[in-house]
């Protein structure tokens, strides 16, 4: 889906946990996330800490949007 949406002219950032799959399939901007059942969260943290964590992850996505890339890039 990432590729088809990007093919339509939309810059896509793929936030996902199993990045090798994303790499194999061909996403161009990838942000690794926490875990499969909660990619943008961590139930071990308090609600506030989780929000912070999520905020930082999405910030990486924003950085990825603003970065020109020629090839597949993981934004860690």
């Amino acid at each position: 889906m990432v590729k088809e949406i990007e093919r339509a002219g939309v810059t896509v950032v793929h936030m996902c946990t199993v990045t090798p799959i994303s790499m194999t399939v061909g996403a161009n901007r990838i942000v690794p996330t926490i875990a499969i059942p909660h990619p943008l969260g961590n139930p071990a943290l308090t609600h506030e800490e989780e929000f912070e964590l999520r905020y930082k992850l999405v910030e990486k996505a924003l950085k990825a949007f603003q970065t020109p890339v020629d090839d597949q890039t993981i934004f860690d």
Partner: protein
Amino acid sequence: MSFRVVHYINQFFAQIGGEEKADYAPEYREGAVGPGLALNTAFKGEAEIVGTVICGDSYFNENLDAAKATVLKMISDAKPDVVICGPAFNAGRYGVACGTVAAAVKDELGLPVVTGMYEENPGADMFKNKVYIIATKNNAAGMRQAAPKMAALALKLAKGEKVGASAEEGYMPNGLRVNFFEAERGSTRAVKMLLNKLAGKPYTTEFPMPSFDRVAPGPAITDLAHTTIALVTSGGIVPKGNPDHIESSSASKFGRYDISSFEDLTAADHETAHGGYDPVYANEDADRVLPVDVLRKMEKEGKIGGIYPYFFTTVGNGTAVASAKKYGEAIGKELRDAGIKAAILTST
């Protein structure tokens, strides 16, 4: 003495009509009809189509149980030794009908059966592990290749002969593994393959990888503060109650839901439909898969222009690449038409 064959086809191949006749109720005709003639030729006298069951594709798919029962009775009354359905090429409803009939013939009548269709026909994924499906081209121009393969496999089955590997007989790999001893040991085969590869000579892989094509990276966003971001997920986040019943596995659709009024997703209003990961955390707080709360904050802070009022969702669990591609195309089209330049897609 030649084997008795009954052939199942749709209204189009029976030359009754096109879509306007797709509601044609099941009918039995003596002898071969339409593509049955090609099959008869391919049998070379060893088998013969004694009767043909014709059914409209819409009729079949809209009356699955009743149509299946009627068709099955027509087939059984003709007392065939083997049954052939289609080929359906890329016609989706026809492929589903062929697969359904073939599976029922196998399970309920206990008869050998062969069908055929294009790899991407939805009927293929649904039935390739249940019945033999000969891989065909995606349109009727492929009849000339398909008929002999289907006839050959049907004859083998009728005779009770051992069926070879999918690559030999031409049917879609059905997940069955049969161990056998290669003539040459693995190390010899590997070295031979490598030598061919190094010399630029052709070689045949023993394990083909699915091909993943590449897309050029989208341009960097220069003015994020004034850019609206769309949210898409394969993690199955849906409004509570999953109103459109997106399947927990092998999703047949994607959803499009309004988030314009949401600052934060909670257990009261959203949940996950995904059956491939432990849903507890996503059900407690769907922001853990679709970060609406954070993006709303960023919107207030002026870091992004806004969030697209609809989010798109499907379940990535076991969903066919071809299906995902279709959903992606549809979503991409809407976003492009709406002037959206950026999208975050989250996956579990």
